[in-house]
Structure formats: structure tokens, C-alpha cells
């Protein structure tokens, strides 16, 4: 479990970083908090010949509220985001999901950008990004900046829309709206483990009816998964236990989740239903409307 050989660069500006990526492309990997990449290197499952460390690059650790949205620099650590007042006030879904990521020691190092770019389908942040319809901002030397909506960002197991020469620079997350309740529910084997299944829910209730709902699942497919059918089923409904149960059933329908040591496909499908229902109930309770 020793890392394979590689060349190591520690640039201090984004320009240098982009130039290195342009030069080395496919052969290179960016290193953020290292919490996912270093274990992969130690197991020799990843073998880049060039490692470009983002740890000294200026300008990637901003966290600020803007017009209706919050911008989080890719190198903001998970722990900093978790403790940020801006996140607490404007991104309650993110604030709720954050403490579920690993353990504090991991969140001290792991970064928001790293988690998004790593695109583990069981991870919390990608599911939150999808549920909130976040945007990812990427930059390359040749093509400059572009914005990628969460929906098309996650493309498969550990696969994103990022090109080998691109750096994920920041995330833009729409700030919480009024009359909107959120909840993140997950089931993990142990405290701090990756979720077997996670469910992120955003629920807007107006005049006692569900005006809008967004549901995203982690751990049930090769990417985080929006559940539009379940969302549609909720729209216009009253806040009732039946409506939530039906939506949860719809959210779990047709899933073909992976089967592994931690849970069978049938189990994960079942969990998806349970967790979506629990998340909907809690989101509604936050709005003071109990089903």
C-alpha cells in the first residue's frame, strides 16, 4: 500500500495549474484534500504520472453569499463549509448533509470541490448539488470558464463532465427560498461511513399544498439520481402521509441499485423508499406542516 511513483507539482496560481494540466492532460491528476485520491494511489488503483497539488493555489477557497445564491470555492474544506454561517443560513440542506460526511478529521481535509469532482455516487454533496440544481464552474487554459449544471455534471461512477485539462473552480448553489423545507436522510452501516442510501429533499409548500418538490438519491445508481416522477406526484398535493408514501414509492420504483457487502439491491431499493418518506416528513415538519 505504497503510492506508485509520480511527478509532483505544487503551483501557486490557477494559471500555472491550468498550464500544467494542459501539458500533462490525461496523465495528470489534481490533488485536493487527498481523502479519496490518496487511498486510491496507495491501493495502486489510480496511477497518474503527474500529481498537481491544489493546496497552494490562491483564489479557490472563497465562500460568499451573492444574489440568490452562495458560491463555494472548490478548495473550501468540508469542515469549513459545515461551520460556515452563510451555509447555515442560506443552504440548510447542505448544512444538514455536511456532518454526515465521514468523520471530522476527514472533513478537516476533504474539500467541497474534491467531493464533487470525485463524484462518488454514494457521496452526500453530489446528491445535494443535484437536489439544489447547483452549477459547477470549471476552467481550462484553452477554453476558459464554463458553467455546468449539476444535472449534466455527474455522468457515471466517478465520472464527471470535467475534461482532463479542467479545474473545478467553484460551486454555485441557489440559496434557500421561503416556505421551503429541506431534509437529508441516510442509512449507513456505521457513523461516518458512506451512506448505503441517502435522500435529499427540498419541499415548497404554499397555501397548504405542495408547490414544488425536488428529490435526489445517493447510493442507488452510478450517479446521484433525481426522481422526477416522485416530484411530479407531489406537486399540487396536500401534505398527507399518503402523498408522501406514494411519492416515496414512486422514488424507489424502477431503481436498480448496486449490490455489495453492505446491502443487496433489494435492500437499497427498500431504503430509498423509507428514506425519501422520512426526509419528506421532516422537511414538512420544518415548515410546521406535519402530515
Amino acid at each position, binding site marked *: *500500500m*505504497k*503510492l*506508485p*511513483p509520480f511527478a509532483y507539482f505544487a503551483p501557486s496560481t490557477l494559471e500555472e495549474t491550468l498550464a500544467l494540466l494542459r501539458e500533462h492532460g490525461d496523465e495528470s491528476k489534481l490533488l485536493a484534500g487527498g481523502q479519496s485520491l490518496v*487511498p486510491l494511489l496507495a*491501493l*495502486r488503483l489510480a496511477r497518474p504520472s503527474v500529481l498537481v497539488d491544489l493546496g497552494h493555489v490562491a483564489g479557490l477557497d472563497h465562500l460568499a453569499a451573492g444574489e440568490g445564491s452562495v458560491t463555494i470555492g472548490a478548495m473550501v474544506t468540508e469542515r469549513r463549509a459545515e461551520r460556515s454561517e452563510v451555509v447555515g443560513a442560506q443552504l440548510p440542506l447542505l448544512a444538514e448533509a455536511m456532518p454526515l460526511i465521514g468523520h471530522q478529521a476527514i472533513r478537516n481535509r476533504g474539500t467541497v470541490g474534491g467531493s464533487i469532482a470525485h463524484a462518488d455516487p454514494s457521496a452526500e454533496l453530489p446528491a445535494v448539488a443535484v437536489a439544489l440544481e447547483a452549477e459547477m464552474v470549471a476552467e481550462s487554459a484553452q477554453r476558459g470558464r464554463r458553467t455546468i449544471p449539476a444535472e449534466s455534471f455527474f455522468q457515471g461512477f466517478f465520472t464527471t463532465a470535467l475534461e482532463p485539462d479542467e479545474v473545478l473552480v467553484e460551486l454555485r448553489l441557489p440559496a434557500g427560498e421561503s416556505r421551503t423545507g429541506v431534509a437529508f436522510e441516510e*442509512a449507513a*452501516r*456505521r*457513523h*461516518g*461511513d*458512506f451512506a*448505503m442510501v441517502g435522500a435529499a429533499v427540498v419541499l415548497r409548500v404554499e397555501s397548504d399544498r405542495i408547490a414544488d418538490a425536488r428529490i435526489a438519491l445517493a447510493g442507488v445508481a452510478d450517479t446521484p439520481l433525481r426522481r422526477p416522477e416522485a416530484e411530479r406526484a407531489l406537486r399540487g398535493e396536500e401534505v398527507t402521509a399518503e402523498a408522501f408514501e406514494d411519492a416515496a414509492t414512486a422514488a424507489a420504483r424502477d431503481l436498480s441499485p448496486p*449490490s455489495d*457487502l*453492505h*446491502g*443487496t*439491491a*433489494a*435492500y437499497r*431499493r*427498500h*431504503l430509498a423508499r*423509507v428514506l425519501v418518506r*422520512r426526509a419528506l416528513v421532516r422537511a414538512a415538519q420544518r415548515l410546521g406542516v406535519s402530515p
Partner: protein
Amino acid sequence: MAQVMAQRFTGTPVKRAEDPRILTGRGRYVDDVTFPGMVHAAFVRSPLAHARVVSVDTSAAKAAPGVLAVYTGPEMEALIEPGPYGMAAMMNIWPPAHSLLATDKVRLVGDLVALVVAETRYLAEDAAELVEVEYDPLPAVMTAAQALDPESPLIFEDLGSNVLAGPKVTTYGDVDRVFARADRVVRATISQHRHQNVPMETRGAVVDYRKDSGEVEIWSANQGVALVATVLSARLGIPREKVRARAADVGGSFGLKIGAQREEVAIAAASRDLGRPVKWIEDRHEHLMAAGHAREETLEVEAAVTNDGDILGLKVGIVVDAGAYPGLGGMVTNIIEGMVPGPYKIDALSFSSTSVVTNKATYVAYRGPWAAETFVRERLVDLVARELGKDPLEIRRRNLARREDNRQMVTGRSLAGITAYESLEEVLGRIDLPAFRARQETARNEGRYLGFGVATYIEPAPGTRANGPLGAEQMRMELAEDGTVLVYTAQMPHGQSHETTLAQVVADNMGVPFEGVRILYGDSAVSPPGLTGGSRSATMAGGAALTTARLLRDKVLDVAAHLLEASRDDLRIENGSVLVAGVPARAMTLAEVVGALRQPGRLPEDVDTELKVENVYDGGTGGWSGGTHCAIVEVDLETGLVRIERYLVVEDCGEVINPAIVDGQIRGGVAQGIGAVLLERSAYDAEGNYLSSTFMDYLLPTSMEIPSIEVVHLEPVPLDPVVNFRGVGEGGMICTPAAVCNAIEDALAPFGVRVLEQHLPPARILELVGVIEPE
């Protein structure tokens, strides 16, 4: 001299002498040991479970940067003598003969194929990737059923089948008569799953062969340096006295690190071949995959019972999946057989056993290796109760042997001094069961499922003399110049806190302060031969410490009587000084006594002035440890997750040397038992790929999953006139899986669930209840 000692330290929670060093990162583990010119080893391991090795090409690896040597199987065989290693060497288990590194075949994923030695472990791993091995795959034998199928390929051609031991059938008592008398027979097939020891420190060794003197020194993580030296001497073909085996701090083992292991013999051969010190530190990936696994057994049991709930007799058939190489798996059934009646009044037993080889990691000892007997018996008691519609507690009360019964197990083991019944009563005195049942009922109506379970066990710690010799624990003790008592123990502590517990016993019996005792261990050149294992050291080493300290004290008093010109009967040692009764001014420190002996003419010629004793302690009367565990759980039937609300242990380990250490041993064992049921599993797929080779897959319990564990100690029942310390190392792990599974079955009672397996991850719970379909 029968004199009651003032017990200042024994029985009190003296702070661990080991802690300041270990907790501040100043412990010395194998990886902390370095030698000048040391080089590093990495093994090429098999990616296949079962295959013929067609060819091994090491040329590219040999040419890689920093590489000193690459050894294939045949090259390694040329450097060593054939024979067993590790625990098999202790039990002299050999054949089926096999090479150290694969010559003809690989028999598990992670099997050793080649050894690379390079300047750093990084370079060694880089080169290991360049070794080209051509395999001819064979079908893998992955289950005991496959192993028993005559159509399956042979793992060892020499063996003629895949059966390592058995089938062996033994009966005790009149089994037929007892079963004929029974009102009914309760049957179940109950299994324990494969899981593993996972000490914090993996295996590892540094070996320094000196070409100048022909001597070899090995530092390794082990449970006894003597066996390490014996194995190395035999396998390297060098005289035993030229091998010095050492160890300092050992980060846990739980039965795994016994003798010099396969990898250690290989690096020793490489060190001799190269004339360089060689280090191998097993990484976690290697460890989980190939260090050894434990506990994969299936037991078919039948209990002859009366409608009143008397368990008259048992029929037990066990099949052990012993993994790929010979080890404990071939003989653990003997201990299970002897222990299966436990503290119960069972009049007849038939026991049949078979151990088979499979293409999985070798079966190793793990904290209470025979624990299958407790798991199966304590599950069975609950199953009997369910079948009869009775309370499991009532079945236990009816069938547990009482101390005053003075019984022996039907297998012949004396049950002298057991307190299993008292421990059950004590548990019930501390749990308000009617209140729990009421709460359980209310909760069920709200869709919440609570469960209560108990399990009772005894463990031979060390066992009773009535069943034969308990061993011979050697100890040496001497007084150093400064008056410190030097204690040379045969124990090799790896978490047992001997530096503290033995010092407590010696301090009290010698009359010196706790700090005035030094416990020395882990050097085959000076340590008496021995091993730490099997919940034995409290009695054996504790007893050796007590008796040896008294011998040394007597010797000191003999010479002090001359020096102080006082009657020996008026002397006593207190706080490191010899005191004369009634004459406080005439005291001598122990350092002064030693100093006086160095002056010629101070003592008559015929007085023995060597303040050194060697002693062998035979275990005295011995005895059992045991107790009852109680778990209260809540099962979430939507997620299948189990939360342990309360965990209570009532136990008896005789006279407690250090309650904090005893409680720590119990809690650690309980945590491992909870882990076994809820989290830990060493899993393979059907092709023999190992699925649990990282800590993301092999889940250990953390402090978040383990509840606070209450421990209550019963009043000790003295059996021996002098030594009544009993071992406590294994009990926590032995009893917990049954207590937790019993509680889970109780929680799931409304669904008629029977728990016949030990591993209950959340998906399995929901399958048992019928919420989801099994895969």
C-alpha cells in the same frame, strides 16, 4: 510461611504502567525498530484463489531500481528446511507439506508467490508489480460443502481429499437412552461466519542475520518469543542458541501472532542470503486478505428436551472451514467438543467433527477460538424455550449446574467453583425485566422493536487441575543493585497489561512499592520460554509472580536476619525496606541489603547470598472464569439497523488483580462480539476473490457503535489456598455474539424469526423479517 500480606496494589485500579509510553506515541512496535543497512521486503501475492503456477519471471523486477533480490518459490525452498511455521509449529501440524512461497500451486487470494527485497518498501512494491506470473487457473473450492464434494478439485493432492481432519465421532453418556426418554427433539443448524482478529498493529518483523557470527536476531510482533526462535532455528537450520527473538510493544494479536510466520521465515532466509537486515511490515490490505481468518463453522444440533424444559442431551455435528493451510482449523473441534456442554446439566452428548480445506485464508486462533460451543448452546437454549413456549431464563435456571451440585461436564471436565447460575441471578437482579417487557409491549404497538437477551458461559481460565496439568509457568526474579525487583516473565504482553498486573502482585508479595518492580519480557536470550494466550496468564503468570515473589522475599529475609542481627520472624519487608518489629530505627533498604552482600565477610559462608530465584508455577487448583451477558437492543425494522441500548456483563474471574484492566479486557471483547454480529465479515465471492480487503469493506466497530458496557464482578469463590486470579482475556468475545443474537431474536419475536446465523447486517435482518427478498 503462611502470612497474610497487606494487599496494597492487588485488587485496585492501579494506573497502567504502559500507558504513558503508549499514549504519548513512545511505544516501540516492530516498525519502530531499525538496523543499520536495513532493506525492505514486499511479497508478490496471488490474485487467484486456486491455480497452478506455470512460470514466474523475475527478470524485470530484478532490474528495477533499488532491488537487491527477488526470490521465487523454488529459490526460497533452496534456502530453508521444510517444516511448519506459526501456530502449526506449536501444535506440530505438518503435513500436508507445502512450500513457503508457491512452487506448484497457489491456494488462496493473497498466497505468497515471490519475495522482493529492495532499498525501500516503495521500490519493493514497484518491483513486485514487475514480477510476471503465469497461472493456470483451477476451480476454487469456496465452501465446506464444495470441499466435501468428491467431484471438487483437490487443494492438496497429497491429502487425497479436501478433508483435513475427521470425520470423528465421540459419544459421552448414553445418548440413545437420553434421546429415547425425551418428549421432543429440538433441531437447528447454526453457523458462525468468517471474521478476523484485526489487531491495530499488523504482523511484521525485522530480521538481522550476522554473517560474522552466524547469529540471527529477529524483532517481530508475536505472542511468545521462544516459539519464534524455535521456528526460525528449525526452518533456517541453525542452532537454537544462535537465534535471538525479541519483541517490545505489540499492538494486539488476539491469537494471530504465534511463532514465526510464513512471511517472517522467508525474510529471515533473505536476510541470511543477502547478509542485510530485512524488514517486512504487513500492510492492512495484505493483513485483511491473508494474515488469517477465524470462525467459519456450521453446527447441526439436536437437543433432547422434556416438555418441562429439561435439556437432557445433545447431538452436535460440526464442520469447520479451515481455509487453505493447516493450522488451528484442524484441531479446534477438540476444544469445542470438550466445552460444548458448558455449565449445563447435560447427561449425554454425541459429537462429530470434520475440518475441511478451502481456497480461503487459513483459520487462525481468535479470542476464544472454541467460542462456537457457547454461541450454539446459548442460541439453542433460546430456541428450546421458543419451541416449548417458555421463557429462556426459565430454561437456563432449570438446566444450569449449581456450584453445590459439584458436577462435571459429561465430557469429563470438572465444574468446580463455577458461578454461572449466580451470574444469571445477578443480571436479573439488575434488570427490571417486568418493566422491560411492559416497555417492549408498548413499543411494539408503536412499531418499535425492542429485545432482551442473555447468554451464559464459562471459560477455562486456565481450567481445573482435575482435568490434568495446567502447565508450567516459569519465572525468574532478582533484586537489582538499587533494590528494584527484576521480574523475568515468560509472558509476551500484547495488550494484557502485564507490566502493571504482575508488578502489582509482586509489589504486594515482596513488600516493595509498585514502582520498585520491573517486568522484563520479550527476549529469548533472557526470558523464560512461554507464550501469552488462552486467558491463562492471570492464574499462571499471576500465580508465578505471587509465589516467586514470596520465595525471593524469604531469601531476602534470611540474609537480612544476619545483617540486622535479628530473629527472622521479627522481620518484614515494607515499602522496599526490611523492618525489625518494634525497632523502627533498625531498618535497611533493599538496596542496602544488596550492597551489604557485596562486602566480603558480612555473612557466614553457608548463607545463600544470591538474591535470585527461579520458580515454576503449576497453576495450583486452577478454575473457571465465566458469567452472564445481557443485551437490550432496538431493531429499526425500516432500515434493519440495530442499536444496543444497554449491555451488562456480570462476570467472575476469581480474585481481580486490577479491576480497570479486567473491565478493559471485557469491554474490548464485547466490542469485538458486537462487531462480529453487526459489522464484521471476511467475505469472498464464488470465484474466491476476497471482498473485505480494506476498512471500507471490513467494518470494525467504533466508539460510536459500542454502548457503554456495565461490568459487575461477582464475589470470588476461592478454590486454591493461595492463587485465585483467573483469566479474563477471552470471555467478552466468547459470550457477546450469543447475547446480542438472542436479544435480536427476542425483538423480532412477533415475526416468528429464528436467528440461526451469527452475522446480522441490516439487509439480513430485513430478509429474516420478510420485509425484503433474500438475494
